[in-house]
């Protein structure tokens, strides 16, 4: 906390507000939930809970980080370009793109293989983006802020006897709690003569949520796995206080000890708890098939709009002010969903060819009432390829893998017919297409 000396009040106020706003929290869920993590996983439509063979296990299933005896470093880049429409008009939802980095370092402890690993998605547009919209404001809820944030996870994994792997870790986010307080004289009728001391108290807190996984090599050709990713929501609590006299400095105040108190409480960064089970079968030396079924607990999603608490004490002038109470926020009524994912990998002539399909039903009901949390079912079809190239002499002895993925997600049209004619938004149709692309280089040491 710091206290500013009496200064130009407008500048102080602007600075305070800017700090308070800039310190607001990040987006919902994470970009890997939306578009996948790494080229191989993306090409197989995310069916990786038993089939991840690189550092993307830091996201898909931390247990599999211990599956390889090699030190691994994966570096890549991925993009997603949505064209999401309402009534056939593009709403210009932001693209998402950023650097994907994974690391896995194995070691031995008491004869067991351990591995530590980390995964990072570093967006190159917004490290994090925040905006709290009114619940009636139409937006594609799952694509608004969700892909616009950093993802960082750290894990520890171990290989146990009988082909069993376990792993767990934490992923990091940050939350905000802050107060901007101004104390002094508020200039009236000329606000430029205000004399206010400003104090800013903002905490950027680390928020952690757990993730864990297990995998079992049931047969030499078959691995099954399961993972759990914790759900969370952030409570955003920001307060703005002005206290003091109102009038012209040096003269008797018009109002003595007046105050304004504004508190905004909102929820953001919602991520549903996720439980995924799956299997990866190497049916032949050339063919691998992976299947995942994920359960996402969207039923705990709450209306993310802000609760505003506004208090104003103008003493003898209080009767001149009428601040209506905020209406209760309508419930979003999301429901849990199950997401099947199927991926195939075929090795041929030194190259690996991949394909995948995923179906993600929408957790959101048709928006017939006061909310406009637009969402649609999603069909994702992905393709990809990878090749190994010889290492770099004495620096990198093992082959380097290059992988690419291209995916398309189709959001079939959905109709939102309002219950009352005087709805502020009215009926609309939502639909869309999202094109994703990814390149990854995988390095083993």
């Amino acid at each position, binding site marked *: 906390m710091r206290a500013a000396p009496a200064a130009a009040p407008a500048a102080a106020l602007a600075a305070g507000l800017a700090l308070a706003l800039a310190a607001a929290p990040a987006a919902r869920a994470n970009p890997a939930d939306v578009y996948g993590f790494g080229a191989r996983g993306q090409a197989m439509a995310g069916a990786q809970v038993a089939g991840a063979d690189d550092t993307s296990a830091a996201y898909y299933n931390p247990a599999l980080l211990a599956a390889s005896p090699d030190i691994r470093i994966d570096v890549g880049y991925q993009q997603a*370009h949505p064209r999401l429409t309402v009534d056939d008009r593009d709403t210009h939802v932001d693209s998402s793109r950023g650097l994907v980095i994974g690391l896995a370092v194995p070691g031995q402890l008491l004869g067991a293989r351990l591995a530590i690993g980390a995964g990072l998605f570093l967006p*190159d547009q917004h490290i994090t*983006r925040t905006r709290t919209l009114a619940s009636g404001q139409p937006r594609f809820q799952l694509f608004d802020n969700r892909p616009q944030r950093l993802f960082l996870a750290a894990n520890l994994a171990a290989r146990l006897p009988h082909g069993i792997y376990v792993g767990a870790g934490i992923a990091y986010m940050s939350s905000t709690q802050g107060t901007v307080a101004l104390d002094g004289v508020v200039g009236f009728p000329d606000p430029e003569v205000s004399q206010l001391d400003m104090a800013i108290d903002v905490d950027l807190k680390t928020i952690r949520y757990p993730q864990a996984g297990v995998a079992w090599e049931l047969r030499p050709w078959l691995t099954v796995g399961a993972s759990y990713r914790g759900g969370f929501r952030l409570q955003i609590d920001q307060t703005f206080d002005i206290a003091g006299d109102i009038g012209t400095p040096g003269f008797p105040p018009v109002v003595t000890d007046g105050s304004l108190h504004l508190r905004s409480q909102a929820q953001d960064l919602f991520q549903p708890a996720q439980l995924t089970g799956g299997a990866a079968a190497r049916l032949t030396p050339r063919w691998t098939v992976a299947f995942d079924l994920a359960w996402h607990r969207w039923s705990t999603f709450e209306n993310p709009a802000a609760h505003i608490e506004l208090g104003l004490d103008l003493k003898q002038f209080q009767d001149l002010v009428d601040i209506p109470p905020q209406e209760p926020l309508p419930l979003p009524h999301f429901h849990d969903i199950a997401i099947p994912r199927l991926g195939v990998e075929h090795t041929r002539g030194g190259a690996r060819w991949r394909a995948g399909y995923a179906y993600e039903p929408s957790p959101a009901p048709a928006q017939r009432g006061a909310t406009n949390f637009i969402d649609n079912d999603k069909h994702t079809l992905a393709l990809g390829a990878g*090749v190994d190239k010889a290492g770099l002499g004495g620096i990198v002895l093992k082959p380097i893998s290059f992988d690419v993925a291209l995916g398309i997600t189709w959001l079939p049209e959905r109709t939102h017919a309002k219950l009352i*004619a005087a709805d*502020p*938004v009215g*009926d*609309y149709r939502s639909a869309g297409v999202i094109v994703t692309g990814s390149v990854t280089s995988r390095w083993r040491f």
Partner: protein
Amino acid sequence: MRLAPLALALSACGFGLADDSSGGRDDLPLSGAGPFKKLAFDGDTPLEEPWLSTDPVFELSEPALMPRAGGGLTAYVTREGAAEPAGDTTIWRLEQAALDQLPDAAVEVLVADRPWEEGHVGAPAIVAEGDTLVMFYAGGTGIGRADSTDGGRTWTKWPAPILTDATSPGLAYDGATWLLAFVDGSGGIGLARSTDGHAFERAAAPIVVPRADDPKAFDHAAVAAPALGWIEEGTGRGHWALWYAGLKKLPVGTDAPLYAIGYAASWDGASWSLLAGNRPVTAAPASDPAVLLQGNHGVMAFAAVNGRRRAIGLAVTP
């Protein structure tokens, strides 16, 4: 394959394919409920925002809006001159090529020349029926009709009023049904329905009345000046839209009434619902709404006092 590491390195440095600002809010649907925000003054435009038309001598009020060929809008307004007997009004037409441009000089298009009009015509409400523009207007103690086949430059009146003992018409047409909103002595906004545009049947009860039981409502004391529209939504379903002036408190003495503009809607023209929240769609002072919706954008013309005279202002959504 030699290009792959280069492409990877370039992309890793952040050379993406596009650059965006915070998006996701363009071209969102529009129901007619606004809110309509009055144009903010912009010193770089010739317009004296929010005023579309203002005059030191004439009282301008009761606008109607139609799309202008080639873009922009055409406004029809009621004009009352200081030199004429008090209450005598005529209807004038003006065109505005763009919202930040001055309108062309206004042209008189309708005068009171029938006995039943009692010296004044005003409050135009206009819809298109094929290539014909149909205007309903207030005159005397009734509502008359005039048609235009040249884009609204000249009008041919029907011989007798369409509706008597009513004024301040609001008109909408969905291709099959005509709805005519009006103000009469009931204190509320009445409605009449027709299938041919000249034989109207009045509803038994007003569709909007003052919210006398809610002293905080913006329309607690009075409702007036209805404007109607038929809005077809993205799903193909349509609804009837009603904008009206609401008065929270009756004026004291010679004070001007401080109207705000509210919104109601109906699927069938019989059962109407008010916009939730008891809030107006355009803040006071604003009265006599007229709305033009084009795509996902809307323009509202309203009347309010500018200086000593009533003038026509503009508000937009979003």
